[in-house]
Structures are given as C-alpha cells and as structure tokens.
C-alpha cells in the first residue's frame, strides 16, 4: 500500500526584510515578500528521500495561509512533491498556534496520512510547537526535532539531539515527525521540476470544507491576545576602534570598566 506523506509548510515573510506588525497586531504580510519557510524545505527534502526509499509513496504538501501562500506550495511541488492542499479562508486571519493546529489536524485527516512531516519551527513565529500540538490533536506519536530520519516497515526512526543527550527514537505509523536544519541540505528545484509543478493539482479548502466554525479560529477565536508591540529602540552607537596593535588591551580596559574582569 502506498505510503501517504503530508508535509506541513508555512508561507512566511522574508526574514531579511523589514518585518512589521499590522494595525491589529498580526504579522504584516503586505510590505515584505513572502516565501516558503526555509526550515520547511528541510521537511520537504526528508519527505522526498523517504518516498524514494519506499516502494510506493505519495507526498501532499499542506499549507494554511493567505492567497499568496500558493507560492510556497508551488516551490514544494517543484522540489518534487506530488500534490498540494491550500487551506484558505478570510476568517483564518489572526489564528494563533492552537487554532492553526486545529485546522492542520482536520486538513491532515481529510487528506489521509501515514506520516506527517513538519519543519522544526516557522521562521516568523518561531514557536516550534505546532508538531507537538498536531500530534496531540491527531492522537498519534510525535517523533520530533530529528536530525536524522528513516521509515521502514511501518516504523519511523530518528535521532534527536537534545540539550543533555542525543536520543534514538522509534514509533509506529501513523506519526507526526519534525526535522531540523541538521537533517540534510534541501535540493533546489530543477527546471524540469518547475515546469512539472505547474501541472500538479492544488486543492483549496475553506473552513466549511473542514467543518470548522468561524469563531473557533481567527483573531476572535484565538486563545491568546497580543496587547502591544513596540519596536526595539535602536542601540545607542557603541565605541568602535580600529586595531593599531593595542585593540585587545583597549577592549580589556572596556571590559574592566564594565566590571566583567
């Protein structure tokens, strides 16, 4: 039977751009170019490698996001994924992590899955909790933050490099996996891949398709509220000296003055 892989990818504002908040304190997506979160490219890459090893596999990329989020899906399709699902609904504006996990869980279930692969964190929200939230909602094992992953005979195995130890993990499918940027460079889409992606199916679902009520998500339904955002004051210009042979000593004097020495 075919191994059904769903890769969750997020469309995010470019981190090297000048990111801001909109008036309602949600992330401003108008002023900065968006792209497929770089950390989710690693998830797509591992999905492609797992599919290569399997006898028969199908990769669906899934995103919850605005109209432009299709760009992220196209990129993933051009890397080699087979089809895409885009969950899009005006009522999703302002959805927080708990809400997003609810939508992703319903969409993953509707798609049908054996393995869900996520990135380690989104490059805008950087919470790194979605995979755990999703596993909890789906009621399946979480095998997260892997720097190495493989699937064989319905079992997913991987290595998790933690703070205090490196662990080998193992779980039966279905499961939710997340991979780190240590899992291996993501491939660039080939010209052929880019052309092929144009013909691959992208399904759009709204909240009704997923049987989710509008008040369960969005700003109104959010479990958290942002009350204020302030731009960090620019650091006051520091002292910069050119080393003329005494740079180390000058720096030591500065550290001593600040009582670090």
């Amino acid at each position, binding site marked *: 039977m075919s191994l059904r892989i769903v890769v969750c990818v997020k469309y995010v504002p470019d981190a090297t751009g000048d990111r801001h908040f909109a008036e309602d304190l949600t992330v401003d997506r108008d002023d900065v170019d968006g792209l497929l979160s770089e950390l989710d490219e690693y998830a797509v890459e591992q999905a492609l490698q797992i599919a290569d090893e399997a006898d028969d596999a199908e990769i669906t990329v899934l995103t919850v996001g605005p109209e432009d989020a299709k760009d992220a899906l196209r990129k993933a399709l051009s890397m080699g994924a087979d089809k895409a699902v885009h969950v899009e609904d005006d009522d999703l504006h302002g959805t927080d992590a708990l809400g997003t996990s609810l939508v992703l869980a319903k969409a993953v279930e509707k798609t049908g899955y054996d393995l869900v692969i996520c990135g380690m*964190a989104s490059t805008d929200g950087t919470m790194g909790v979605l995979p755990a939230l999703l596993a*909890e909602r789906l009621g399946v094992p979480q095998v997260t933050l892997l*720097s190495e992953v493989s699937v064989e005979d319905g079992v997913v195995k991987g290595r998790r490099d933690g703070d*205090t130890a490196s*662990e080998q*993990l193992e779980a039966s499918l279905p499961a939710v996996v997340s991979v780190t940027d240590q899992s291996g460079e993501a491939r660039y889409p080939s010209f052929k891949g880019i052309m092929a992606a144009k013909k691959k199916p992208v399904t759009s679902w709204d909240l009704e398709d997923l049987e989710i009520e509008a008040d369960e998500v969005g700003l109104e339904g959010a*479990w958290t509220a942002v009350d204020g955002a302030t731009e960090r004051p620019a650091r006051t210009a520091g002292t910069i*000296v050119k080393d003329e042979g005494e740079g180390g000593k000058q720096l030591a004097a500065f550290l001593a003055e600040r009582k670090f020495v």
Partner: protein
Amino acid sequence: MAEVLVYVDHVDGAVRKPTLELLTLARRIGEPVAVALGNGAADTAATLAEHGAAKVLTHDAPEYADYLVVPKVDALQAAYKAVSPAAVLVPSSAEGKEIAARLAVRIDSGIITDAIDLESGDEGPVATQSVFAAAFTTKSRVSKGTPVITVKPNAAAVEAAPAAGAVEALEVSFSEQATGTKVTARTPRESTGRPELTEAAIVVSGGRGVGGAENFPIVEALADSLGAAVGASRAAVDAGWYPHTNQVGQTGKSVSPQLYIATGISGAIQHRAGMQTSKTIVAINKDAEAPIFDLVDYGVVGDLFEVVPQLTEEIEARKG
C-alpha cells in the same frame, strides 16, 4: 493566594537554573507549586523550597526516561487537576515547549512561548516576548483557559525566598499515548566543564572568521579567562569546526547573557535572532562594514588572531 504550577527541569535531582528563575516569576503571580518528575525528583525539593516553592509534587517512573514527552504531559496534567492553578510555567527548552503545547490542547488553554518577562495583570499574567529577531517586543496574554507560558533562560534573577517546599507524591496514570514514541538509546553529552550556553553570564562565540576547528582553542581560551560559555555561528558549525549544541541563533540556542563577545561573525539576521537581547555586546571583526557592528557597545576592527590572544593575555594579567 492562587497557586502557580512550575515545571521543574532537573538532571537526576540537580535543578537547572532556568527553573529557579521561573520561581522568581511565579511568585509575582501567586504561590509556586513545583512539579518534579523522573529520577531524583524528590531530591529537588530542598533547592526549590529555598527559592519559593510552597509545595513540590514528585513522581518517578521508568516511562519518563523510556518514552518521549507524553508521560511528562500526563503527569503535568495530573498536577494541573490536583491544584487548579492560576497559570502553568515551563522552561523554554525544546522539550519544555512541547510538553507545554500538549498540555494546552488537553486543558483547552492558550499557550505563549519564549517569554522574556512576566508580570501579573488585570486580565491574568502578561508576558513579554521578543520577536522578529528581537526587532520588536510584544506584550501578550492568554485569553482562553489557564495561561500556559514557557519562559526563556535569563528572564529573571534567581532569588532566595525560603518557603515550605513540602514534598507530596503526585498520582499519575499514564495515557494510551504515553508509550507511543520509544527512546531506544541515549548518549549523554560530555561535559566541557564550561557553563551551560543558555545560562551563562558571558558567552564568547566564534564564526567563519575563526578559519578552522584547529583555531577554536583561541576562542576557548578567551572564554575560559572570563568563565564564559563558548558559542559558534552556523557557518562554523556547518563547516564542522564546532558542535551544533553550541550554535547560537535562530536554529541554535538563543542566549541573553550579560556580555556577548562575537569574534569573526558577520551578524546575519539569523545569528542576531539568538543573541540580540544580550545586555552588553562586543565584536571583533576585520571588516568595518560587518552588520554586527550595528549592535555593539564596543567593537574592534581588526584581525581576531591578533586581538583575541592579546585580550585574553590582558584579562589574565588584570586578574593577577
């Protein structure tokens, strides 16, 4: 007074510093009740009591070491049921965030991650977060359910505040999911004898400018003269010069020490994301145009192979 659950991060009974910082923050909201799980759980009580824990709920079972995350969620949920707290605070480690997230789903509560400060407010605790690579500071609160908040290391000072710290055994029955992800092997990290990167008061980091693994001892010598932890940029880690556990930045550790010294690091946005909230920032870089100099309190434009050894020598001399 309302009780606040504090999840204890410890290694075989030795409480890690971020948990003590959590107790400081918890006392601003209510009376801290600590939850310590796994091997050595009961041994944490004395330290926790010294820092304000009114109660310490403990439980040990092989499941905590043999399976990933979920057994701890089951236990924290049991503590939640027993206490009905005003908030649940968890250290912002990778595992801490996952435990907190799953608890939030189970108790239908909002979650805030990576708080750098916490105050009590009219509508519940208010968390400060640093976002967009520390370009913005936000104030947030949980608007549904019991606030579940994970807090970054160095968010508050560790304070002595003696309390009862009465140890109580927590009753835990594990869920069906608890044994879903098996830990089949574990290799503990070797200790370097240096402070923990995320907890250190001073961090000295090396980047691509260090030029090779064989040169990192120059960075380490400076770190040792200051009693500092050693960090590295992703470029240095990807080149295999230094372990990934020492990486500072978006996909590595986020640090907020009193002093951060960057040597041979350009200051890319993803690196800044992990160090920009450091109190004092110093850089040594031979390129006067490097973006890291926009952040510094003190910068030396020069060759690190000249400047760093001279700095180390001068620090050693001043220490006498």
